[in-house]
């Protein structure tokens, strides 16, 4: 990237991504604003925005030793959750006014129990998301959102009207459109942005006021259109996995000469496929329907074959040469999902590499070696 304005905006995104309590959140808090953390992208951020809070996707500090959390969680806990809870115990997430946990996975749902048992926050709420996406489940999820709305109202002494919800939906739909535009640029033969840079942009969007984020993102996209773009890469790669949020990890992959052009992750394309239907009568129903039926699912939900089809479609759209399945160790969800994806990709002769990592970036040499070997396989096939 050479465009100076784009680089300056990227710095803004990087600051938001690399610092838990970043400058935007500080400014917001200084103005008396509230921030509500949430654990999973199944949680409609719109609900939190409508309550007048910044929705903050919970992350842990990566470069910390897990001293305190050992007394709370055993060795078979995913390191995302252990780092997150360690960060909670160190009081580095004390700027949060509350947290909303989703029962997405076995590790994450216990954040709810720990946070309640040990009184980490005044407001700790669990929103449960059905695994199926039929009419009955959408109705059930709508009720869950109604409960969440009532809890947010009581906690923050606000009235979340339908108008506020629609306003919030429009704001977040705008984010979706902009992210779609950003990713569209990556379909080009010379994408103007790397995978690592894109990830920084996406993560930043979960850690700053949405209005501000949308303004920066719009400007960023406009500047990127003037970029010549990246060429000379060895292969176009896709990453499939959970909440992989460390741009450094993507950079290590791209250091070998690959270019990550797309993904199916919790900070990636799954966040902005389609939009919440603004023509619906009821905003909560619109949200329930979008999050449960419209947006692509993850292993939290039933219907693995649909997910395989989604990955294949995105891989084709972005002219991907190979797919990396990245996951955090001890993740049952992705451990089995990647196995099934591997089989599905074999059907279409798409090379698939599985990388298992800890939450904090480690074993960089090994990652490089494996990616290197993977690229050689891809290049060998192209000859």
């Amino acid at each position, binding site marked *: 990237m050479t465009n100076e304005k784009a680089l300056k905006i990227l710095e803004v995104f990087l600051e938001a991504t690399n610092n838990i309590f970043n400058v935007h959140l500080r400014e917001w808090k200084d103005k008396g604003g509230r921030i509500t953390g949430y654990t999973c992208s199944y949680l409609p951020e719109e609900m939190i925005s409508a309550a007048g809070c910044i929705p903050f996707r919970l992350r842990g500090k990566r470069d910390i030793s897990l001293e305190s959390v050992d007394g709370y969680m055993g060795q*078979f*806990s995913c390191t995302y959750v252990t780092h997150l809870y360690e960060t909670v115990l160190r009081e580095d997430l004390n700027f949060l006014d509350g947290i909303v946990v989703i029962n997405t996975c076995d*590790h994450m749902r*216990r954040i709810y129990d720990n946070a309640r048992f040990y009184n980490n926050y005044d407001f700790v709420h669990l929103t449960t998301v059905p695994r199926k996406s039929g009419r009955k489940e959408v109705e059930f999820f709508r009720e869950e959102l109604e409960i969440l709305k009532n809890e947010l109202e009581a906690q923050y002494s606000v009235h979340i009207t339908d108008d506020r919800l629609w306003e919030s939906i429009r704001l977040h739909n705008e984010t979706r459109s902009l992210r779609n535009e950003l990713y569209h640029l990556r379909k080009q033969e010379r994408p103007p942005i790397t995978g690592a840079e894109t990830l920084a942009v996406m993560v930043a969007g979960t850690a700053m006021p949405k209005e501000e984020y949308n303004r920066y993102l719009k400007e960023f996209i406009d500047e990127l259109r003037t970029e010549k773009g990246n060429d000379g890469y060895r292969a176009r790669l896709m990453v499939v996995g959970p909440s992989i949020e460390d741009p450094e990890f993507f950079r290590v992959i791209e250091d070998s000469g690959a270019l990550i052009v797309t993904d199916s992750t919790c900070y990636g394309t799954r966040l902005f496929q389609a939009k919440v239907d603004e023509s619906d009568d009821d905003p909560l129903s619109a949200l329930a329907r979008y999050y449960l039926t419209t947006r692509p699912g993850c292993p939290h939900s039933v219907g693995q074959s649909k997910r395989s089809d989604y990955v294949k479609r995105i891989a084709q759209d972005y002219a991907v040469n190979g797919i990396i399945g990245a996951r955090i160790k*001890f993740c049952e969800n992705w*451990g089995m999902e990647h196995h*099934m994806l591997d089989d599905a990709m074999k059907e279409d002769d798409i090379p698939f590499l599985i990388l298992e990592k800890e939450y904090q970036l480690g074993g960089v040499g090994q990652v490089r070696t494996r990616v290197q070997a993977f690229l050689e396989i891809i290049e060998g096939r192209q000859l």
Partner: protein
Amino acid sequence: MKKEPLEFQRELLEIFGSTREMLEEEEELHRILPILDAEVITIEKTIECIEQEKPLICGSYFTCPEIFSAMDIHWYNIAAPAFFNYLALFLDDLMEEVYASVDQSRLPNSVCTAHRISTSRIEAYPVPTAFISVSHPCDGYRLTNEYFKQYRPWQNVETFDFEAPYRIDGRGMKFYASEVRSLIDFLEKHTGNKLDMARLKTVVEETNKHYELLMECNDLCRSIPSPFPSLANLFVWHMIQNSPVGNGSPETTKFIDQWIKDGVNRLEGNKDDLQDEEKIRILWTDMVPFWGMELAVLLREEFGAKIVMDLGSFSDSTDIIDTSTEESMLGGIGYRNAHNGLMLNVVHGPIDDFLQRIVFIVKNYSIDCVIGLGHIGHKDCSATQGILKDTCKKLNVHLLDFSYDCFDSRVTTVDDMKILFANFFDVMGLG
């Protein structure tokens, strides 16, 4: 070694048959012969379904076996090969085979062994008429079920995904009633069998009797000494909920009646012997190792210790289904299958109910020590070890935390456990 379904079932029949012969020689083990007989009948029925192309469901003990029983639909448990561990003392060859398939599994080692066993032996499963898939109680179960759906020979198998709300509340009960109705519709459509609600009521009321009797078995365990060996009542639970032949059957009622009589007789008999094997009373919180009979022997012979209660055997009034209305009955079936019983009452849902049970058992069963949440496949349990530890502190009861694999005795072996227990009992001044 890959096995065809019929071949595998016939092999199991042989194994259970010869195991029964072995157990006949040990008078003390006669009480579990009815369980083996039920297993034999189950396998025979499975073979009949395969050979005669009769309706056959693949499900689990928490996919509403009450409904299957009422509709006279035969089913088999998707986790059966993993569960056979419970006869590990007698089934060396089978266990060797099971472990070999685990070692060849393409799934990461961190995935629960039960699922690595199921998925690596998938070709040995009879292709069912219909598959009742679940998304609870844990990630592994849900993804294993997804795996089975992808398996080519199963791709035309009709599937019903059973949704189990995470929380227990009024909304959840209403949802369960609706979900169980949908399950009934699905089964009627794909098996041709019709459900008679009156028959279902009879079956459910029989299972209610079973659970009431299981509570009586548990009550006997409150006495010091307890009349049953370690984990014995798990066999009772198995007959009630996990046995296609035992579920809802008056024969099971007779079996448990006799079980209780045997227990009472033992209490009235030689208490000294019982007391010798129970110098230390243990509560096992997580799912017990399925190779637990080896563990039970170790505890008795080395330490005079007994697992007087575990969460799989434990039953309380929430197991009893209100049959006064169709809605309450169907909702109750859904609830029981989502929140109660082996593993479900540990893993599914927020931790509150689990903790309440732990507190109740510690206070009412004269527990000397608690074994913590250690099965390595239970990732959610790993994340709540601290909460259990602090709960035990408040209860002033000793806690031993260690990791083991319910389905693979090689991970933490019986010898490893001997050392762990020896040190623990010594330090805590137990025994």
